[in-house]
């Protein structure tokens, strides 16, 4: 990961990129006797290999045109606009795969098969956000290919909505958080895609705090319940684990973006920057951001109201086992959670972009923003996103705590969401199944009948020919003499004709 970040040229970056992918593969498959974990690990690696391949192609283009992979040479290159587009598209392919954005997003929820600290570190805080870093690091290339950059923003906007919707119906605590990670990275893509690099990077930082916090508290809950991950069984856990409960709440509020928690400061400036484009698609992105805030409030507090408040359910009482004081996890688990809770709360105070922006100033020399929304727009956006987030919380409260609001019954929609928009099925049909069939067909139609049988046939023919020729070797002197004479005659004839 450090090599990825500190690499001074694109090749080193790609090496770090591949090695974090390898670590991810190994850690997802940590419980290697569990078939679902092994499958998830392979899926993550193959999807990332696809991203690595498109990145490598982008690098080949740069090599062919500049004979160099250093950032400076690449940024200063004089390429045609279509070449810039291809380079940017290749890099975007890698970024999308690594950061689990549509269309290469399906590996991330499955990656939750890994241990919880792994999910917290590489599948929430660091590795999956590398795509955002990549776009910010190579922003010059993306600015030469502005269309591709806006496609990245559009991908982010789409992902944040789709992931938010899917998160509404998930029942596994880690998967809810995983979809929320996808959705938040969607925000970051939106940020760096529209050109507000510092806002995207700032959200990357605050997100690392609160998302790691959420995963670790989820891990505490799972651990205390002997591995149970289904949120429908967890009601009332807060009473038994108060520290976990309050830490989770801090993370949840930061995620929704309620001031003064950290998510508020970073998320709002991204949404404002989208509107700052002053184009029709800028406003579409803006609306997506606001809608995403509503969804975030809804799915996060659905999780909260299902798991923590209220009286403990029978299941919780039966499975909960004390590990430390107050029924909490041991202090080795609580300490990091506490640190993260503090950071998730105060981490955003570093900057509030309309008034105070040292983070942006600091990044100005590396990645200057290319959109600057007005302060008015920022205030307006903040009000809108906070209102949307609070509305989401209110709806979740009405449905899951007070039960005054029934979930609207739309079976088709519910099925669509529970099947995650059928992406897995689609890719199975589109890629995996054809590849398997093609491989099997090549084997049965070409390899076995033509290539292998062909070899056997050649062998058989040689043996048969040998059998025929063997008959000449009669051992009878008369035959040999006859052939000798005939051969000599033929030679003489040949010489005569040649002469």
């Amino acid at each position, binding site marked *: 990961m450090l090599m990825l970040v500190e690499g001074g040229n694109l090749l080193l970056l790609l090496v770090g990129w591949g090695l974090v992918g390898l670590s991810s593969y190994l850690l997802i498959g940590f419980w290697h006797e569990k078939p679902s974990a092994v499958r998830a690990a392979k899926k993550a690696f193959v999807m990332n290999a696809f991203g690595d*391949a498109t990145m490598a192609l982008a690098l080949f283009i740069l090599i062919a045109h500049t004979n160099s992979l250093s950032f400076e040479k690449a940024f200063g290159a004089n390429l045609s606009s279509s070449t810039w587009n291809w380079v940017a598209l290749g890099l975007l392919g890698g970024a999308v795969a690594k950061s689990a954005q549509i269309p290469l997003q399906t590996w991330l929820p499955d990656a939750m098969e890994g241990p919880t600290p792994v999910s917290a570190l590489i599948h929430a805080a660091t590795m999956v956000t590398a795509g955002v870093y990549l776009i910010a690091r190579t922003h010059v290339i993306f600015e030469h290919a502005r269309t591709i950059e806006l496609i990245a923003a559009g991908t982010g906007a789409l992902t944040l909505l789709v992931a938010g919707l899917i998160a509404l119906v998930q029942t596994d605590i880690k998967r809810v958080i995983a979809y929320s990670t996808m959705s938040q990275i969607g925000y970051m893509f939106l940020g760096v895609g529209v050109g507000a690099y510092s806002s995207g990077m700032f959200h990357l930082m605050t997100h690392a705090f609160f998302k790691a916090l959420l995963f670790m508290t989820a891990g505490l809950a799972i651990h205390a319940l002997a591995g149970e991950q289904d949120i429908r069984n967890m009601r009332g856990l807060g009473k038994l684990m108060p520290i976990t409960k309050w830490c989770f709440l801090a993370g949840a509020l930061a995620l929704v973006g309620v001031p003064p928690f950290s998510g508020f400061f970073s998320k709002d400036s991204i949404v404002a920057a989208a509107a700052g484009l002053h184009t029709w698609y800028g406003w579409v992105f803006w609306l997506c951001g606001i809608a995403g805030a509503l969804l975030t409030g809804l799915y996060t507090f659905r999780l909260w109201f299902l798991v923590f408040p209220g009286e403990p359910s029978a299941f919780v009482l039966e499975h909960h086992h004390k590990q430390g004081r107050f029924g909490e996890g041991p202090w080795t688990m609580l300490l990091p959670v506490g640190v993260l809770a503090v950071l998730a709360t105060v981490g955003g105070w570093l900057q509030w972009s309309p008034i105070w922006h040292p983070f942006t100033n600091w990044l100005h020399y590396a990645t200057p923003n290319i959109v600057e929304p007005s302060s008015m727009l920022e205030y307006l956006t903040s009000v809108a996103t906070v209102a949307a987030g609070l509305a989401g919380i209110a709806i979740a409260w009405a449905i899951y705590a007070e039960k005054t609001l029934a979930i609207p019954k739309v079976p088709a929609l519910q099925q669509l969401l529970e099947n995650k928009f059928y992406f897995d099925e689609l890719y199975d049909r589109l890629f995996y199944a054809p590849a398997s069939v093609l491989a099997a067909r090549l084997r049965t139609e070409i390899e076995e009948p033509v290539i*292998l049988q062909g*070899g056997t046939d050649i062998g058989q023919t040689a043996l048969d020919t040998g059998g025929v020729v063997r008959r000449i070797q009669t051992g009878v002197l008369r035959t040999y003499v006859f052939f000798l004479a005939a051969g000599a005659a033929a030679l003489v004839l040949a010489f005569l004709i040649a002469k």
Partner: protein
Amino acid sequence: MSTTFLTSILIWLPIAGAIVVWLLPLSRYATGSIAVLASLIEVGFWIEQASRFNFHSSSLQMSEQANWFGTTGPAHHTRPELGISYHVGVYGFSVWLVGLTAVAMAACIGYGFWVGRDRPRAYFALMLLLTGATVGVFESQDLILFYAFFEAMLIPLYILIGVWGGAKRMEATVKFVIYTMAGSLIMLAAIVVYGLHAGTFDLVHGPTSASRWLFLGFMLAFAIKAPLFPFHGWLPDSYREAPPEVTAVLSGVIAKAGLYGMLRIAIPLFTDPTGSQVLPAQFYRTAILALAAAALVYGSFLAFRAPDFRGVVAYSSLAQSGLITLGLFSGTTLGLNGAVLQMVAHGLVSVSLFLLAGVVERRTTTGDFALLGGMARGRPVLATLLMALGVISLAVPGSANFAGEFLILAGAFKLHWWWAVIGAGAIVLAAMYMLRLISAVLHEARGSTVADEAMDVRPGELALLAPLVAGLLLLSAWPAAVSHHSFVGRWPNQPNPNVIRTPLP
């Protein structure tokens, strides 16, 4: 001190060792010890050669030349001199291939010793003979000598598969012999015609040729040996039936002799160094690249559905041969550098993987994925080795194979983007088949043939595999050791740019 003797000694030391173990009526243990010792001394001489080699010079080094036969005599003074000589020497890239041979053969001979092969005197003599012949192929600078060594590799392989192989070994052997003989006889004809017209069989001073037939004659032999699609009919059976260490040699070292032939003979003899004419190597370039790409994609797909350990590695070797050919014929320095690096890296990987297949088969009696699984539990060394080799083999960024593939595809990209796109697609396929192999052996529920008592990798086996893996890790850290120390200047840098035209029917 003169260093020229190193070239010859690398050829003849193993052959002398072969004669010794063949003739001396020693015990199984003593025979094996002598063979292992000889192979280790061979490695030592190679280290000496590599350390004394001047990697900044583009000319042939440590060369020796002596008359062999066919030179001008009093009775034939009107005939042109045939110039068949014992001419050996090394270039930068040959040093690495000789090293690959020495190291891989030492590991494989050690493996044979470890498992205790029957008829040890014959077995070890043949393995040593094979070592010498292969080194000879990589060092010959005379076509007739090259051909002699090229054929000399075949004899030990023929016997090694036919005697020590699996149940269907005879079928595999016959197929192997017919395929390779067909190729090399055509090559012999091409060599003779080339030599008669050029007036010399020398590779260093020989002129380039414009004959397409001759080029195709050479290429056919090399394409069978490498192998390339669709000339790989011998491969699946041989790789499955041969003893694991012989399969390792076949795919890790012998296949490289075919690729080396393209690099040393088919490309420089049939490419115009001045670039003013289109000679056969350029004329057929697109066709050969297409065959190479076909091997790459086809091999990857078949590896993805192969039902057993060796099948996956065998077809992945076919794919890698295609990839290396892609680099060789890309006509770019990047591609050539990458191809040599990939030959060495893939050689080490496939030798290690086939030996590991042998390790697994010894414990479970099978390589069939349906009967394997769950071997990681309680066998940490095996799991670590297979995982490390698997991810290096699928060219995870940072590995030696990644560096090789990257250079090859970057070179191929300069030629045309679609070659690189096909190669990049193969990267994804490689991930799919290698991860499938790893999981099928190591992960999930325990296979029906995996007994509780099946041991982890033993120290003896580890002693064979660890140096190979260490070599791969070193190459991963410093791939430029090979890729920047193989060529100086432009290859092919033929000193004699005269083009001869060989009239052929």
